[in-house]
């Protein structure tokens, strides 16, 4: 279109740049969590995650080897310990260093520090040190404060902790399976129930149909907050109690209005000829529904399935009210994360990783089936 009214290349550039800016702004928070989940606790708490992508200069507290554990060389009346301050495989370079926390930039690499009592220490740029004393070295390894540039470093350790450790507070494995257990029946059952109802509302004539549709449109917006106490009382009263059955039923009930609404709107749009031909050929309503309508409605079914999946997977409130009891055996991931926020508010490595584990599945579903999600959104917003 812009070509018709002449080229406006500056404006084009502005458009490209502002879209890029917005996209980056929207991605930035999530990327932060993602990057953090691959960093160690130390790294997260000492520097912003955006610095993790580049070599960074950090103030480190390091320690020479423990004299009791390594061999000391004696040479000319002095005892020597040598080694490297950094863990194996770390490719860091020291810019300044010191031996006292009050003056961490006292020396440059290659200098020799006098530690008193005849002990001396020399640290090189790559972290190699020589520690020597007039007598045999004793005590703990000498502390060294170094300002060093370290390359980006990432670890899978957090994921190991969160997914495979036996710790009850940190492990997400159980919560992951609980969430899955809640989600799958809660997605499938409403589809079946809603599909039949939607067919009746779309293709069968009976008195009261218009009113029923209006009621369903109305129920679409009823806040589920209203349902919490009455239904919890009902569940406790009839013996379901708190548990999976209760949460499946609740999700089914809460998902039905949208399911019926989406499916009915889609089914109404199916060609009338097919259905009438089938009727003329002697098909019953049941056959028409299962053999013709259901297969043709696949896109709408998929749309709703994604909605319901995302909604049940991400839900906190319904699970908290209808599922999770005092034992906490049936906790779901969202609840586990909220509890982690309470007990481990500062442990970003655990939090970030746990959150990312819970986000990963919906994100995968989202990117794989985005087409259906968009279609469902377009059909689902009351026009």
């Amino acid at each position, binding site marked *: 279109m812009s070509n018709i009214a002449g080229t406006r290349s500056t404006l084009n550039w502005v458009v490209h740049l502002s879209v890029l800016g917005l996209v980056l702004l929207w991605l930035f928070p999530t990327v932060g969590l993602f990057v953090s989940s691959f960093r160690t606790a130390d790294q997260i708490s000492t520097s912003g995650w955006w610095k993790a992508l580049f070599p960074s200069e950090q103030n480190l507290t390091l320690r020479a080897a423990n004299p009791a554990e390594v061999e000391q060389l004696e040479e000319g009346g002095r005892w020597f310990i040598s080694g490297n301050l950094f863990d194996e495989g770390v490719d860091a370079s020291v810019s300044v260093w010191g031996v006292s926390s009050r003056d961490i930039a006292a020396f440059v690499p290659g200098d020799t520090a006098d530690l008193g009592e005849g002990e001396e220490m020399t640290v090189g740029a790559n972290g190699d040190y020589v520690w020597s004393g007039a007598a045999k070295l004793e005590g703990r390894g000498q502390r060294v404060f170094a300002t060093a540039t370290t390359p980006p470093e990432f670890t899978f350790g957090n994921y190991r902790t969160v997914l495979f450790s036996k710790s009850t507070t940190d492990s997400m494995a159980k919560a992951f399976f609980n969430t899955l257990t809640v989600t799958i029946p809660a997605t499938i059952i409403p589809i079946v129930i809603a599909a039949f109802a939607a067919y009746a509302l779309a293709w069968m004539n009976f008195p009261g149909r218009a009113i029923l549709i209006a009621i369903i449109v109305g129920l679409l917006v009823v806040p589920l907050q209203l349902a919490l106490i009455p239904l919890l009382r009902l569940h406790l009263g009839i013996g379901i109690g708190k548990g999976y059955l209760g949460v499946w039923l609740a999700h089914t009930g809460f998902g039905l209005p949208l399911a019926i609404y989406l499916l009915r709107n889609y089914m109404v749009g199916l060609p009338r000829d097919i259905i009438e031909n089938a009727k003329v050929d002697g098909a019953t309503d049941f056959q028409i529904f299962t053999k013709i309508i259901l297969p043709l409605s696949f896109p709408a079914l998929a749309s709703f399935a994604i909605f319901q999946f995302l909604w049940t997977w*991400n839900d906190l409130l319904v699970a908290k009210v209808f599922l999770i009891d005092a034992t906490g055996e049936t906790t779901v991931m969202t609840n586990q994360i909220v509890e982690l926020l309470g007990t481990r508010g500062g442990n970003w490595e655990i939090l970030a990783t746990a*959150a990312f584990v819970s986000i990963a599945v919906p994100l995968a579903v989202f990117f794989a089936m985005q087409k259906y999600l968009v279609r469902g959104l377009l059909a689902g917003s009351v026009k």
Partner: protein
Amino acid sequence: MSPALQGLITIVIGVGGCLSYFYFSNLFLDKILFPARGPDAGRNINRANMIRPWLFLAPALIALGLYLAYPVIETLRLSLTERIPGGGYRWVGLDNYRQMFREAKFWEAMRNNMLWLIVVPAASTAFGLLVAQLTDRIRWGSFAKSLIFMPMAISFVGAAVIFKLVYDTRPIEQDQIGILNALWLQFDGGAGSWALLKAIPSLILAGFAALSGYVGWLILRPVIVGRLHGFGTPARIVATAASAALVVLSLRGIFELIGADFNYGAPQTWLTVPFWNSLFLMVVLIWIQTGFAMVILSAALRGIPEETIEAAIVDGANPFQIFFQIKVPQIMGTIVVVWTTITLVVLKVFDIVFAMTNGQWETQVLANYMFDKLFRANNWGVGSASAMIIMLLVTPILVWNVYTARKEMR
């Protein structure tokens, strides 16, 4: 029994039960109750066809009635009663409501909810519209859109964790790990800070005030000219009053912003600063809902007839005129739909507040207040009363939706 197995059995029983219910009830209807043979064949077919819709609808209707309709009435009843220790209920009339209205925390929640209702739908719709328009004609537009749409898949709790990291605070002598504080410490109170933190936000607020005023004027004009009769007039006057309130609020906001004394150079604990912390929580929801607004509005923009735009170009309209005077008026209906849908989400917002501040530091909202009353204070009467307030706030949208849906079906 392992939950996974239990889940599998439930799927089988649930799906199999539903299918066999539908199959056998149909079979029973056709073969036994009203068989299509014998002397009454014709009448039987008609009878069966009258009953069949209800067979198809029955499970859904029972579930809807039990899980959505009954709770509305039951909650209303609970909000008018009080639990007697030891069991049973006592009718207390409006006492629960009176008690709730006396609580400062309730009014705090109401005030915050109103703020959420103004800011979140407006910001999400505006950003959504902006992105939809900008990505409309660029080649990587759909890629950009899917990235901005992505937060829709992230749970409120996950988003809360993501943004807690953004808002994180460290003592001044340490490196900041929250990006917001890291940026904040770049400001020193000089001219740059003044421009970025006072001048530009003031301009945005002024723009918002102007827009609200303009919309209010557009709404009011037919009433003044006298072209409108009956039902529309009161609604329009209310809407105009609301936009006038927005103008006053944003002008006051500018005034306060210019006079504000920012605490430069010190890391802020963003979630504990009253008023601002509510805005920081809203950012989370705006971040999520913008994608939704964008998808719907983008489809609406695509649906605008090309001829109207071509005609405007031929007449020499510039891109801004085309957008505001040709495109926006044509998708006004969709904008209203997006706005109301996000409004509904806002009214029910719970997880974000629950996970990030739990209503502390004056960030309480209605849904979290209700959860607090129900499950911490264990006060079902007041909890139900606050649930009814949420229902009351939703009702206008409910009526409007039913009204438009019925109009469309005709």
